[in-house]
């Protein structure tokens, strides 16, 4: 398990990450979602021990990354935003170097390199110079490097950026596959990607956590009534009257008619959605109206994302700022430390 507590990072006076805390459980895929410049990479760099933090702790399987970096880093495989490859090396040479660097016992090296090569389908390019490879292959070589040493936690910073759709799908499959024996944290600014593979999502903006939850719970957070779409062989007027009379139907949002088929979109209040949907169907059927199709609309995740990201930051108002400053004053130790780091 990785425990991140009160992680804060200042670049000079610029606050890049502000007091974030979360945990990553074993065998879990955690999505790290936020717009560009939200502090995703900075956080990942701190978790992996590349950047020191201004405040806070990162605990990896019981080892503190700043106090015991060598032990803690053994549990981590990291693929940074730019794949960390040496252009003048061949793929197999590079993986061999990484295996040595990660202190993998000699007896396991060959096997691990082979399995990583196979998993990322690098067999065909293993004897080519990395500088001659395409962006997608370079990314895969970087990914293979992160897998070496069988680390418990894989930290992937925007692993699908710059890949073609087929490669993106491949990377997603690999990530899903890895869940069996690893935990994966991966960052992205694309929502659909995160919702496709992640168990839980951390939404971050301007260095602050806006939400940590499962995708389903996030969907529930949108305060909007579920919406049902329905098409039936009747006039829009009749459909409106029949559907509007059903108990649980909140409001008819849209109605239209073409070629004798009415399309109606309506919202459902509080009650169980499928129950309302059933009563609407039976109401129509009892009037001998043929139903062509009906489906419930899923709440728009993009909407959730935009809403969460645009939540006011902690220090949005002057009053709050003053309050925070007052709260900080009784801790001279911390403020001194901040000055030093600046």
């Amino acid at each position: 398990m990785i425990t991140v507590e009160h992680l804060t990072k200042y670049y000079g006076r610029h606050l890049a990450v502000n007091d974030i805390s979360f945990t990553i459980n074993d065998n879990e895929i955690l999505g790290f979602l936020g717009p560009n410049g939200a502090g995703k990479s900075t956080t990942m760099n701190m978790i992996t021990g590349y950047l020191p933090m201004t405040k806070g702790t990162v605990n990896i399987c019981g080892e503190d990354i700043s106090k015991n970096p060598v032990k803690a880093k053994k549990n981590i495989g990291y693929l940074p935003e730019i794949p960390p490859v040496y252009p003048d090396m061949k793929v197999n040479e590079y993986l061999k170097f990484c295996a040595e660097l990660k202190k993998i016992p000699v007896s396991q090296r060959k096997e691990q390199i082979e399995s990583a090569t196979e998993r990322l389908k690098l067999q065909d390019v293993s004897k080519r110079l990395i500088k001659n490879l395409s962006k997608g292959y370079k990314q895969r070589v970087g990914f293979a490097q992160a897998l070496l040493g069988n680390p418990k936690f894989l930290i992937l910073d925007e692993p699908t950026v710059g890949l073609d759709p087929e490669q993106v799908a491949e990377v997603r499959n690999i990530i899903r596959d890895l869940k069996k024996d690893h935990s994966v944290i991966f960052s992205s600014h694309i929502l659909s990607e995160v919702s496709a593979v992640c168990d839980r999502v951390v939404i971050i903006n301007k260095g602050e956590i806006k939400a940590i939850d499962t995708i389903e719970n996030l969907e529930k957070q949108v305060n909007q009534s579920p919406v049902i779409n329905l098409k039936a062989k009747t006039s829009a007027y009749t459909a409106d009257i029949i559907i509007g009379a059903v108990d649980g139907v909140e409001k008819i949002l849209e109605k239209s008619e073409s070629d004798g088929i009415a399309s109606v979109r309506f919202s459902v209040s509080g009650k169980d959605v499928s129950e309302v949907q059933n009563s609407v169907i039976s109401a129509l059927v009892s009037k001998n109206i043929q139903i062509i199709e009906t489906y419930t609309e899923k709440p728009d995740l993009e909407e959730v994302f935009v809403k969460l990201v645009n939540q006011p930051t902690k220090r949005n108002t002057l009053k709050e700022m003053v309050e925070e400053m007052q709260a900080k004053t009784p801790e001279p130790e911390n403020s001194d430390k901040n000055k030093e780091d600046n």
Partner: protein
Amino acid sequence: MFAIYKKELQSFFKTPFAYIITALFLFLFTLSFNRGISDINSAKMQFTYSDIFATNLFYFAFIVPVLTMRCFPDERKFGTEVLIMTSPVNVFQFVTAKFLAIVTVFLFMMTASLIYPIITEVYGTVVVPALISVYIGFFLWGVMCIAIGMFCASFSENSIIAAVIGEAAMLLLTFINYFVTSEYFSAHPKLQSFAMMFAAEDKFNYFAQGIIRFSDVIFFITVIIVFVAWTVISLEARRWKKG
């Protein structure tokens, strides 16, 4: 640490880099060697390697920065610094591995230069103890330059800038004994004696004369340790400062 050392050696020897720089070094050596021979006259049928090496110290200010300029800026450029810093290796091991790799290339260059004493031995006589002494001095001087060059590269984002700063630092070190004897320094004897402590060329000259003084060896080793330590500190400081 051994992994980084091996990788560095590969990057020098699997590419033409080490061979080209050795060739350049030998070419410069040949120039001074030729001059040494052509200066021989009938009155004095000898020439000294000390003179040849003393000339080479000057060339060193240009050769060593080329060896050291890539070491950290390139890692930053390719983003591989992240790989190394997130592996179970600490900054000290990282710096030491790089340092030892460059020293190995330097030893390769020095071994190649042995061809001149061998040629001399074929056609004449070589005073072996004096040669050993000057080689020790030359080795210490070279390693000192490597440590300084690495330090200059440690705080630079760009390898060309690293090389230029390194060259300036090494030229200063080579010529400090000339500056020290200038009028300004003579007017301030305390400053002069302080600056004199850093006059590495004077210390090299003892080796060139065949005198190995313990204090000179300590001087070179101290400078090497100080600069390697500063490199470690400088890399750590960068991690704290930048993003």
